[in-house]
């Protein structure tokens, strides 16, 4: 304790003397809970960006960045709120990389971050509710909203010349949120959704559900479910009874299991899942391997990007004060300016210090749209001869 006090005192002295400081960033992720297996790779992704910036010595006259982790649990909003409270009040962090899941993120943003004027950048909360939330300009995310996926999916369906669809979704927040956003987007574009009904996972038989969908009719069936769960059961029953021949698969369904389960029976069906393409991802993966973790883990690249964005915004505004740098996040994330890939944070800082503009691309091709979330790149797939083929990105 004594040592810590001494170190803090010394740090304070140093900061006062040189203008450089030790910036603490909070990392609030669900280290325990239903997504605990994903959290470590996300933490390491974020810390890799912090280390890169610290090592460059270019952030605000050589400031260094350290991470302080907290457990958001993913499902317990009260625990997440307490964690973020601790990070801000006790640890004095200058920004929060988190939270992980949508519900928990909403709670800590509304209860703590807004009250303290703290910036939060979430790598993985996808709920459409976070788009419309009143956030005082403090909340950003490097993950796309499911509203965006609904929109993209509606475009893809339209481009296939299909104008009436039936929708079935898995009976939870993900399924309902995505199905509703798709239905809204599709109807806005002039399509017709004949029915939008739920199915429960883990049943032996989906013929009753499919009978209902078939009675409503449609040229294709949109299956917002899980490929290892009821989603495949619905497709099976629909194929067996001849109710539908064309299916639309969002991210929860796109997997190699589809090929194994149905082969050429679903030829002509199509779908999409989020996937950043391009050089940024490759670079990030090899950097992660070098640093000793698996960068292909879900949302690891998004976590790197979230931390990097926060630090670049600090450099841009010349301050680690959230109230000041929150205005620069969108600025560094988007054009105009030099494109910045992972591993080029030092270069970005040099440009910023020289008064130039940067356009952060990062590991996941970041492009922030109002009100501060990733526009999201989706991979469009199609089934041909029993194989899943990538037909493009949008």
């Amino acid at each position: 304790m004594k040592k810590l006090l001494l170190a803090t005192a010394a740090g304070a002295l140093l900061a006062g003397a040189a203008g450089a400081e030790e910036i603490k960033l909070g990392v609030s992720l669900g280290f325990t809970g239903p997504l605990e297996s994903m959290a470590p790779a996300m933490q390491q992704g974020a810390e890799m960006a912090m280390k890169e910036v610290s090592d460059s010595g270019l952030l605000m006259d050589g400031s260094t960045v350290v991470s302080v982790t907290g457990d958001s649990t993913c499902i317990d909003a009260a625990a997440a709120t307490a964690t973020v409270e601790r990070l801000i009040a006790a640890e004095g962090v200058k920004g929060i990389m988190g939270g992980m899941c949508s519900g928990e993120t909403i709670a800590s943003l509304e209860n703590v971050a807004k009250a303290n004027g703290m910036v939060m950048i979430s790598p993985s909360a996808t709920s459409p509710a976070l788009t419309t939330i009143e956030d005082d300009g403090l909340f950003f995310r490097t993950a796309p909203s499911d509203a965006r996926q609904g929109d993209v999916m509606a475009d893809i369906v339209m481009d296939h010349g299909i104008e009436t669809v039936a929708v079935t979704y898995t009976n939870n927040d993900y399924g309902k949120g995505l199905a509703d956003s798709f239905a809204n987007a599709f109807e806005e574009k002039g399509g017709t959704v004949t029915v939008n009904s739920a199915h429960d996972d883990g049943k032996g038989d989906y013929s009753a559900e499919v009978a209902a969908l078939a009675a409503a009719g449609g040229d294709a069936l949109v299956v917002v479910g899980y490929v290892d769960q009821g989603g495949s059961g619905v497709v099976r029953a629909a194929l067996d009874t001849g109710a539908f021949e064309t299916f639309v698969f969002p991210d929860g369904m796109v997997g190699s299991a589809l090929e194994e389960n149905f082969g050429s029976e679903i030829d002509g069906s199509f779908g999409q899942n989020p996937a950043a393409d391009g050089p940024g991802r490759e670079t990030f993966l090899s950097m992660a391997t070098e640093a000793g973790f698996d960068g292909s883990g879900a949302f690891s690249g998004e976590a790197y990007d979230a931390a990097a964005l926060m630090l670049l915004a600090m450099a841009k505004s010349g301050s680690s004060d959230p109230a000041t740098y929150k205005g620069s996040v969108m600025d560094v994330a988007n054009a105009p300016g030099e494109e910045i890939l992972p591993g080029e944070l030092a270069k970005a800082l040099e440009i910023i210090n020289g008064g130039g503009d940067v356009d952060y691309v990062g590991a996941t091709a970041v492009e922030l749209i109002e009100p501060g979330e990733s526009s999201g790149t989706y991979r469009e797939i199609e089934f041909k001869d029993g194989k899943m083929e990538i037909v493009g990105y949008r």
Partner: protein
Amino acid sequence: MDFLNALVVFLNFVFIPAAAYGAQLALGALGVTLVYGILRFSNFAHGDTMAFGTAVVILVTWGLQAMGISLGPLPTALLALPFGIAATAMLVLLTDKAVYKFYRVKKAAPIILVMASVGVMFVMNGLTRLLIGVSEYRFDDGERFIINVRDFREWSGLPEGLALRSTQALTLVVAVIVVIALFYFLNRTKSGKAMRAYSDNEDLALLSGIDPERVVRMTWIIAASLATIAGTLYGLDKSFKAFNYFQILMPIFAAAIVGGLGNPLGAIAGGFLVAFSEVAVTYPWVKIVGYIAPWYEPSGLMQLLGTEYKFAVSFVILIVVLLFRPTGLFRGKSA
């Protein structure tokens, strides 16, 4: 033409699925009703007996497939059925010796046996999961369809398709064979008559020289066979997942009670009644009505209940029957 279309839709989405499901429920209800009629308690472990039997059948099926043995167009599981029945019969006989016999000798009240069977249910539950796991398995092989949607459309020229899966047809055929065999056994053979005598009056049966232990043993073996056959057919038609067998216990009991507990004929009628009600009540009739009465344009789907409430249907039937005709449609024994 429109009438034909309506008929095809009805067959495809209502009649065929409900008939196959009804046959599965009827076989399950027969086992429940037999145990009730002769051993005089509601066997709550019946659903998990079905699961256990099916699990053994699946394991043997995999073994046969690995050896390259198959039945051609029929599912290999049919070959594995005798093994499953034997293993399940052994298990229920052991259970009878270890659990039920103790209470039977003490002439315990039926409710005590029912509670004991709930305990047995949980043990079998675990046993099945240890044996095969909790995941979902599909073990049907051979021809999938007798009538295929695409072929039917080409053949008939109708816009609506009709599918008849081989497992659905198989379920009905096997169910008919099993029911005929069971009724022949109960009505024409000496052992069957002994069982019915024991069911009617235990003491009188004892006086006329019927060995009660033998009757009990036979009852269990038949119940185990029915459970394994019903479980395997259900698994072939849909898919095997241990938990689903726990869930169909409710419709099975509803079927047995609606038909009249202890009455085999009632169990069959009850099975089909429950199945057809479940499907008919949750089916949206808009398409069929659209074909028959095109001038009438309903705004909704014409669905009485959402498909989520499927299981509720059997409970409603159960309550109505218990309120107005407690002994069931076919006058079974009332508890």
